[in-house]
């Protein structure tokens, strides 16, 4: 693990996020994705059928991943590229640093890549004196701010326009201080002008991949800004960094998954750019890199194959789950404390950094099921979160008090006569105490509830005792 997690302090993070007024002003933007997705889905009657076929494609691929990885590697090599397997973050970083050093790189431009966040690549490059330049606008903004992405497709969604203006004035010091930056387009063109120079001065361009096509050895990125194309086409060396479940058998398969990807993510029918790269520049190509490398990161994913969390490997990183999550809407992405936020992060984080570190996340869900309802790959996210809870319970990672309370409750719940004996007097008592107000403003052991809400008093005698009395205790 290369990136330190604050996930074990999740509850503190939640508290801070809920009291961060600036963040709370920015967060409503995340809700806009919902109506856009809904409109896009409504325009495509076969959307649900496409989800089924997308799921089938990925399930098939994962069942034969070894085969498709080998096929992909063969095709990349045939096209003149190189494939590097990295078991973990450290190996991936070593490979990328090796490539950078071999070509004497000083500046690396980057397309948007969550896997590069996962391995902590920017910090590793900086340590070696190599400047990493994020070229996706949102990533560029958060790099200026020294922050991590708070959303997997909208990394700066926690930042307001005013924040960006202040950041640009702080960092772009050689520009006229009295320039007008009041409109978003002005911010955009300033960033564009600065990045244009960086694209031209970069020695290595690093991108992620939405798909790696086994049939052709092609890497595909799906973007909206065009920065990815400049990142990978202009420098001498193009490095693709991707986790191994990005493998997809054929271009036809990709075409099917593409139809659900952008619709689920931003509500676009297609993203603005879908860019395919196969190997380095050939003799008669007008442009392209001299070297083409693919770094395939495992980081525990292959161990997930065939196990209870294998469904998670279908994830195509569209962000629909977090766009529809009431927990994400309340706290944003940083509070999750590691790289991947939202429901997909709640399942993936314990897989990648261990359930002891990441275990808070699968617990912090109401199981409302909206994530599963919108997931284009039909990943049963609530069930997978529940499976994590089972793992924690088995390993006694559940907080001892919660575990003891649960076991005590279960002891009675398994024994109806004892249960009745325990709860009936308790409810009569609580009912009497609460009768005058009808509710409690405070209850022992329920502070989590009563700090913000009243708690209704019981009506008194339980239903079952009243029913027995009514039906003459025949049961």
């Amino acid at each position, binding site marked *: 693990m290369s990136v330190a997690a604050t996930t074990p302090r999740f509850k503190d993070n939640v508290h801070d996020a*809920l009291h961060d007024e600036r963040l709370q002003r920015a967060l409503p933007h995340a809700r806009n994705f919902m109506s856009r997705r809904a409109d896009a889905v409504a325009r495509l009657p076969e959307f649900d059928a496409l989800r089924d076929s997308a799921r089938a494609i990925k399930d098939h691929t994962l069942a034969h991943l070894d085969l498709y990885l080998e096929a992909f590697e063969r095709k990349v090599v045939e096209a003149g590229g190189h494939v590097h397997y990295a078991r973990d973050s450290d190996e991936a970083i070593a490979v990328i640093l090796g490539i950078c050093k071999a070509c004497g790189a000083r500046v690396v431009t980057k397309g948007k890549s969550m896997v590069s966040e996962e391995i902590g690549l920017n910090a590793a490059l900086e340590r070696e004196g190599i400047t990493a330049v994020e070229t996706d606008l949102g990533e560029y903004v958060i790099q200026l701010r020294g922050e991590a992405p708070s959303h997997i497709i909208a990394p700066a969604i926690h930042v307001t326009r005013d924040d960006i203006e202040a950041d640009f004035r702080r960092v772009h010091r050689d520009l006229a201080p009295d320039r007008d930056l009041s409109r978003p387009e002005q911010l955009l063109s300033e960033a564009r002008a600065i990045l244009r120079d960086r694209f031209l001065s970069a020695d290595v361009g690093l991108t992620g991949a939405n798909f790696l096509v086994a049939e052709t050895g092609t890497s595909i990125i799906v973007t909206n800004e065009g920065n990815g194309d400049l990142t990978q086409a202009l420098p001498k060396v193009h490095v693709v960094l991707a986790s191994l479940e990005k493998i997809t058998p054929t271009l036809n398969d990709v075409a099917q998954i593409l139809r659900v990807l952008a619709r689920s993510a931003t509500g676009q029918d297609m993203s603005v750019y879908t860019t395919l790269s196969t190997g380095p520049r050939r003799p008669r190509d007008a442009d392209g890199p001299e070297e083409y490398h693919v770094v395939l990161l495992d980081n525990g994913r292959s161990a997930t194959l065939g196990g209870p969390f294998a469904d998670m490997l279908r994830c195509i990183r569209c962000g629909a789950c977090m766009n529809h999550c009431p927990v994400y809407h309340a706290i944003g992405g940083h509070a999750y404390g590691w790289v991947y936020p939202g429901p997909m992060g709640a399942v993936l984080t314990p897989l990648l950094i261990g359930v002891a570190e990441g275990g808070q996340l699968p617990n912090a869900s*109401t199981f409302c099921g909206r994530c599963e309802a919108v997931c284009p790959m039909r990943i049963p996210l609530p069930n997978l979160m*529940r499976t994590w809870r089972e793992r924690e*319970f088995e390993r006694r990672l559940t907080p001892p008090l919660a575990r003891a309370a649960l076991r005590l409750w*279960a002891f009675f719940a398994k024994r109806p006569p004892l249960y009745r004996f325990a709860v009936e007097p308790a409810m009569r008592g609580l009912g009497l105490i609460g009768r005058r107000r*009808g509710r409690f403003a405070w209850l022992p052991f329920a502070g989590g509830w009563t700090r913000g809400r009243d708690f209704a008093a019981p009506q008194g005698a339980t239903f079952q005792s009243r029913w027995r009395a009514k039906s003459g205790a025949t049961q």
Partner: protein
Amino acid sequence: MPESQAAKTQLRVGLFVTCLVDLFRPTVGFAAVKLLEDAGCKVVVPPQTCCGQPAFNSGDRADAQAIARRTIDAFAGCDYVVAPSASCAGMLAKHYPDLFADEPDMAIKAAAFSAKCCELTSFLVDKLGVTSVAAHFSGVAAYHDSCSGLRELGVHDQPRKLLASVEGLSLVELDEADVCCGFGGTFAVKYGELSNAIVARKTDKIAATGADTLLAGDLGCLMNMAGKLQRLGKPVKARHVAEVLAGMTDEPAIGEPAEAQAK
């Protein structure tokens, strides 16, 4: 099954009253009994505790299995098992078979049991063909769809259909009706601050409708939303949909004192 046929054969319906209704709001249980009996069912109430969902969702699979075994046995003689809660009905109808995935004999038994389990309003409408109720309630009500009802069991139109027949009641739709209220069972206590933030947004939406009554089919969600409305001093009264459908609204609304009702 049409109503006439239900009357002919008299379906034996086991009421799974749910632990929250049993403990906190027996009125809902009696309202469910009345609705089922009015529809021609014979209602029985086998001794019961809880569906096991708190254990299941806390990762305590062994206890959830033990509770599920008891529940399945307790309702053995019933044609249907009906719960005035989509959350509990979802546990019975959708998750019991998952619990016994590694025990083929029990899995078959659980699947047969699950097939008999229904949420109350969807049982009345979809299984019995009930289209109206003889009830009166004066007020403007907002209906909250519980997540389990909406996404696990397809409960959406059924309660609205029945509520439309209640004399004196007008129903308004909530903005963001498909969003969770933040209850989530033990989540509401374990992640109280987060749960509270989610329900605060929900109660804003409820208040914005101008409704004087909040209705839902799940007592957990209702206690959460009622508790927040009351803490904020909003004058919206929360009731289980069965109370209104059965015309049993003499008891104070959820979390309201007995005296206020007498006014």
